[in-house]
């Protein structure tokens, strides 16, 4: 198994708050890993450190063994990390298709001179962009209008577009920050299915999620954080039974909040 991502002893603090305080985990190819933990545990901050939006104060992030710690987001993205955001970060005035095309920026295929001269190369690459965009929208099961600006979409629709955009990046690692938030039961089932199909593309997934049903069913391993620290790392079954995790996060009455239950 090749190791895709390795996070070693990551730390970052804001003022007095140690948002991430010594996080370490690694992700193998095609693996799906969940990061869970109470609100404010530092999950999103960890994502931000990995993707270069925050500069970690110490620790290292290795992608395919190559150190990417502290590089700027665009370089990390180019190195092969793709992500979605907890609060949607789409381009609201642009069309659905353009939003997905954003994920294909690194494909290249044309330069500005091609564009000005409308060379055949340019036309070919534009056609390819559009075709790919439709492909990824179909892949995530998006059935809404595609030529309209993102603003006109409901929240759930936007979530799908964001995933399509991230997939269009075709990178080996996908970080999803709470993809199921705001989705109802049926939609979560679709998401589950989608993640499995993504894995089949050869992409490893790290997802932050609060929906335990989804997490338990989907992930091979779960990293649990609390107050920036890692309090557990193991299989779903191990984590579920871990008293510290129950205490800090799950609560005793574990099936209460699970809307997408494992046995569904």
């Amino acid at each position, binding site marked *: 198994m090749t190791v895709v991502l390795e996070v070693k002893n990551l730390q970052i603090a804001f003022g007095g708050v140690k948002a991430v305080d010594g996080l370490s985990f690694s992700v193998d190819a095609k693996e799906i890993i969940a990061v869970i933990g109470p609100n404010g545990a530092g999950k*999103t901050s960890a994502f*931000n450190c990995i993707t270069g*939006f925050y500069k970690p104060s110490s620790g290292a992030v290795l992608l395919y063994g190559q150190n990417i710690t502290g590089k700027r987001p665009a370089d990390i993205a180019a190195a092969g990390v793709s992500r979605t955001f907890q609060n949607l970060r789409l381009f609201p005035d642009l069309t659905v298709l353009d939003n997905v095309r954003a994920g294909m920026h690194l494909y290249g295929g044309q330069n500005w001179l091609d564009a000005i001269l409308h060379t055949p190369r340019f036309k070919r690459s534009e056609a390819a962009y559009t075709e790919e965009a439709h492909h990824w929208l179909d892949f995530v099961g998006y059935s809404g209008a595609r030529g309209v600006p993102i603003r006109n979409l409901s929240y759930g629709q936007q979530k799908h577009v964001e995933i399509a955009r991230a997939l269009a990046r075709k990178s080996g690692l996908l970080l999803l920050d709470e993809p199921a938030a705001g989705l109802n039961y049926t939609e979560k089932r679709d998401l589950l299915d989608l993640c499995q199909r993504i894995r089949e593309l050869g992409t490893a997934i790290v997802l932050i999620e609060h929906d335990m049903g989804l997490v338990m069913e989907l992930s091979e391993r779960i990293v649990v954080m609390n107050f920036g620290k890692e309090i557990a790392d193991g299989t779903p079954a191990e984590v579920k039974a871990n008293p510290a995790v129950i205490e800090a996060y799950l609560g005793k009455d574990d099936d209460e909040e699970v809307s997408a239950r494992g046995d569904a």
Partner: protein
Amino acid sequence: MIQLIWDGLFVGSFYALIALGYSMVYGIIKLLNFAHGDIYMLGAFIGFAVLTSVGGIPASLSIGALLVVMLVSMLLTGTAGVLIERLAYRPLRGAPRLAVLITAVGVSFSLEYGISALAGPNPRAFPIRLEGNVFVLLGARISLPQIILMLIAAMLMVLLNFYVEKTSTGRAMRAISLDRNASLLMGINVNQVISRTFFIGSALAGAAGVMAGAYYGKIDFLMGFIIGLKAFTAAVIGGIGNIKGAMLGGLVLGFVEAFGAEWFGGQWRDVFAFAVLILFLTLRPTGILGQRVTERV
């Protein structure tokens, strides 16, 4: 040297007073109100009209008369600001920000050439002129009118700062600037608060206009243009949208200009001032007091 600092401080307080209105309006509706300098001009002309219609004023009364005229002018420019917002800016709520900016330029043209059509394009000598004892302090010549004007300016600024920082209307202003729809859900009458902001900002500019008329002695229909740009600059140096920053920015700009003129000669003063500004902003991209918005991703 002391003279230099004093002169910079004095001009700077004019900049600051106008920058305040700029910054307030910017803070709340993110509008670079290019017509703001023209409100200052309007204030001066209202003062002029009031004074000439009253007729001769005994020189001894000039400070008192000035204060009264200033109040009248503040009231009227404030109202003008509210009207302009109503008619020209409010219909553009929710429109792209630059659209409002262009409207503001249109308003600026209208004010300038409207006054020029009404009062003629000639510069006018202001009917009262603040003249007073000059004394020398640490080698700098300082005049009584300068001190009085700076006191008035400082007082207005302190009041305003209190209003914005400590009252609930002030808090509402800041809230609107952050998220207008969420402010609506707090029960904030957004229209009313914006109107108030325009009133206050414009009244301050009006006060500055009267003060400038009385101190410098000349007013004309284009007098707001350059100082408007300066105030804009000052507001940005201070951290646009930030009230204290605007005051500070005004004073800093006054100093930088004074030193620029001293070191490089009058013709290079603005080049120096802008170069300093650019350099400064590259080092501190959000101005002196502007919040470094740690964007959460």
